[in-house]
């Protein structure tokens, strides 16, 4: 286990548009098990935020409880973070976003946190189209309580406990699609090449962006009989295609087969380019996404990549018509109607 990170950094580390190196996006040293998929996801978040040139302090990291929910400590140390209560990250993120719509909100959750105890909050934050990245670190089991099956565990999948899971799994992606999510993707913690552009695209999307990341638990669910093990996922992964995220005003330089490519421009002007493996998948069609997921599932495969995107959606603030300025910055003059109005109210009560 690493418990000390050397201060030394290569003097010629590359910098981003803000002049920051990757170091400015790192966090405390992880206390998760060596080889945990979650650490790769933290690294992907660091990479994505660095490449997007986000100001770290303009990001808020919010989580629930569980191994996954510990990870916000391990990235973006100059961001405020909130490790809240089990299954309730969505409500805390909703409140935080209502208070200040100008920050970037990264919510990290797990399969227990989102698909069991927090199922209600997950469903409703999707419906409200809260502008946030909602990243599920999905390992099919409860790590911190030592390996119980979670609600995303496949039927028959067996972890270290040695009992096959007898219950139907919950697929957070198809569920989110059903509930009206405006950005849905699935990925694998071991596929950084796919995950980093997806995180960048999700952060740039102005609405609710779900990335369900299969992230093996090396200690309790990395057995030969588990469908959430490194080996199984690597062997059964199927991708919707290769995703490119092109920031604002950058020229697109890529070759693609006609009919097998789809381009989506986001609100901020950045472009997502998907080099599709399946010409039947249409990023703007929920049904095609749900079908594609089910088709792969029937074959025993896990479909990853960008699945659905609606760039022209209205986020919660737009739906409820709140002012552009962060609500938390409003002062007495905007908030307090004053004594004259009160006197009129008194009069109406006589």
């Amino acid at each position, binding site marked *: 286990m690493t418990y000390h990170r050397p201060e030394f950094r290569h003097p010629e580390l590359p910098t981003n548009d803000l002049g920051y190196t990757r170091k400015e996006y790192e966090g405390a040293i992880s206390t998760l098990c060596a080889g945990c998929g979650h650490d790769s996801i933290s690294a992907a978040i660091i990479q994505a935020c660095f490449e997007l040139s986000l100001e770290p*302090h303009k990001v*808020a990291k919010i989580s629930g409880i569980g191994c996954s929910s510990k990870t916000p400590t391990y990235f973006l140390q100059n961001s405020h*973070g909130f490790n*809240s209560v089990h299954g309730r990250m969505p409500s*805390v993120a909703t409140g935080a976003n209502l*208070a*200040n719509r100008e920050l970037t909100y990264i919510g990290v959750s797990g399969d227990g946190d989102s698909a069991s105890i927090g199922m209600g909050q997950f469903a409703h934050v999707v419906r409200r189209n809260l502008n946030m990245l909602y990243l599920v670190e999905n390992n099919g089991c409860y790590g911190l309580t030592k390996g119980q099956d979670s609600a995303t565990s496949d039927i028959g999948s067996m972890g270290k406990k040695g009992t096959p899971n007898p219950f139907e799994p919950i697929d957070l992606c198809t569920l989110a699609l059903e509930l009206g999510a405006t950005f849905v993707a699935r990925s694998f913690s071991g596929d950084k090449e796919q995950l980093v552009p997806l995180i960048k695209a999700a952060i740039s999307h102005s609405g609710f962006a779900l990335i369900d990341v299969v992230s093996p638990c090396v200690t309790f669910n990395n057995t030969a009989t588990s469908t959430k093990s490194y080996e199984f996922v690597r062997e059964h992964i199927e991708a919707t295609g290769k995703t490119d995220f092109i920031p604002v005003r950058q020229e697109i330089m890529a070759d693609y087969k006609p009919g097998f490519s789809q381009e989506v421009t986001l609100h901020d002007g950045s472009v997502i380019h998907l080099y599709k493996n399946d010409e039947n998948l249409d990023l703007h069609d929920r049904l095609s996404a749900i079908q594609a997921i089910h088709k792969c599932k029937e074959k025993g495969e896990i479909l990853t990549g960008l699945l659905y995107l609606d760039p022209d959606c209205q986020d919660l603030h737009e739906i409820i018509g709140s002012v552009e300025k962060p*609500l938390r910055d409003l002062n007495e003059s905007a*908030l307090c109607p004053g004594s004259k109005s009160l006197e009129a109210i008194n009069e109406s009560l*006589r």
Partner: protein
Amino acid sequence: MQQIKSVNDFVIRFANTNGTGSASANNLFAKTVFRMGIPVSPKNVFPSNIQGLPTWYEVRVNDKGYVGRRGGVDIMVAVNPQSMAQDIKDVEPGGYFVYDKTKPLDKRFYRDDVTFFGIPLTDISRREYADPRQRQLFKNVIYIGALSAMVDIEFDVLKNLVHDQFKGKEKLIAPNIHALELGYQYAQEHFDCPIGIRIERRDMVDKHILMEGNEALALGAIYGGASVAAWYPITPSTSVVEQFEKYAKRLRIDPGSGKCNYAIVQAEDELSAIGMVVGASWNGARAFTATSGPGVSLMNEFLGLAYFAEVPTVLFDVQRTGPSTGMPTRSQQSDLLLAAYASHGDTKHVLLFPATPKECFEMGAASFDLADRLQTPVIVMNDLDLGMNEHFSEPLEWDDSTCYDRGKVLSKAELEAMPDRYGRYLDVDDDGICYRTYPGTHPTKGAFFTRGSSRDRYAKYTESSEEYVDNMERLLVKWETAKNYVPEPEIVPAERSTCDGIIYFGTTTASAEEALDILRDQGVHLDALRVRGFPFNADVEAFIAKHDRIYVVEQNRDGQLRTLLVNECEINPSKLKPLLCYDGLPITARWIVNAITSGEKGDNVVPLTKNKKVTV
């Protein structure tokens, strides 16, 4: 028969069926009395039902200014056959009984100590109105018209009120006034008007208002600067957020963009509602939620997190009976222990106890300052009686020089100028309250990770026992500081020096004040203390120390305020005599008087509840 004779001092109760529009008609009666310059107090006793079950509306008229419930009924207007057998029993000897004589009254209901007035309400409305819904609605208005003749209400005042109430729906004015006239004429022609009870114009209202506590709380939130409201519908708290929205739409629209200087989210449950409040407050907005006991139960975990993470959190608890389907539309003061110690682990929370709409407004606004100053949950303990009934109240006041106290929050410049390392949980002022930063303040300074109690003074994760204990002890220092910020009790000394005292709070206040006057006239003198906040400050403890025997009057079964006093103060518990009224109806002055006088006789207040007649 000795008929009750009185001017401007009586209790009238209307017995109706839920969903027939009776409450608005009955409110006409109350408001007209108010506009004739006489203090009035209407109380709606309603079922958990939309249509069909019995409902009662009681109006206390009193020109001495007593606006709590008195107990007993002088005039009963009984238009619901379902409850009539009980309604007739509830009339005071010498009282009056008004009923619909379209069908003859069951002979078993007759009492020879009550005067009966039959009005053919159904017949009249059938004759005058074709539409069945109108027949039902105007039946209520007809008896209000009849009453105006019977108790000598100035008919013009009634007419003007109808004009005011139907502003914007002018079509309804003429038929309503017609219905009033029908009743008025019938009473003039058939009864000897006025009857023994009547109303005479007074000049006692002055600047007072008639207002529901929930509406006042909502305005408190508007004036206190709340910009985020998250909630889940639950009786009797729903109208807090509905009123907040009503006023926000009028008073909180940005003139430039036409957009809202507020956000209201109806959450999926109370857990989510409080989570949103915690998230918004953590991020620097003033946020609140409103709920009732069942909601507070669900919010427990978050309240504990907010206590340990030290996030300002404002919660309005409009108390009722419970749980589940247990009399959810009846009033109680039974969430004190739930709220004071909400959540697992060692937690305690600041509580405020308003007694009038004016205080709901003031405490509603102040709760945001308090929460920001103390960085902890603040719970305003309203109840159904105060929240959903109109109360005779002093007008709301606001000082335009008020600046919000956002507490200890570091700005970018302050962080920049800070020579030492920033510690979120570092008690630099020795008052237990540390400095917060909002997310997004400074690129490299002031960011911290918020979590439960596994952290050191610099918000760094640790499971060290020393750090845990250190933090818990600092939270106690903060608790002591809170005693200087919560509102002081209101102490009313007796006219004569006495060793006996009485403690009450919230909606018991008006009835207790009347009871104290009655007791004084009987030669029983009590010093009174009204609790307005928790933690209790030194004045409360001193009051208890000064007296040998103190009655603690509460509207719950278990003496929850008494438990808090015993638990939190260094006092002798045997001094505190519980007087507990918990039938779900607002406590009456007569109940308090009886409880104390029967206690006086036997020096034992335990049998009180057994002897108490349960009436609505």
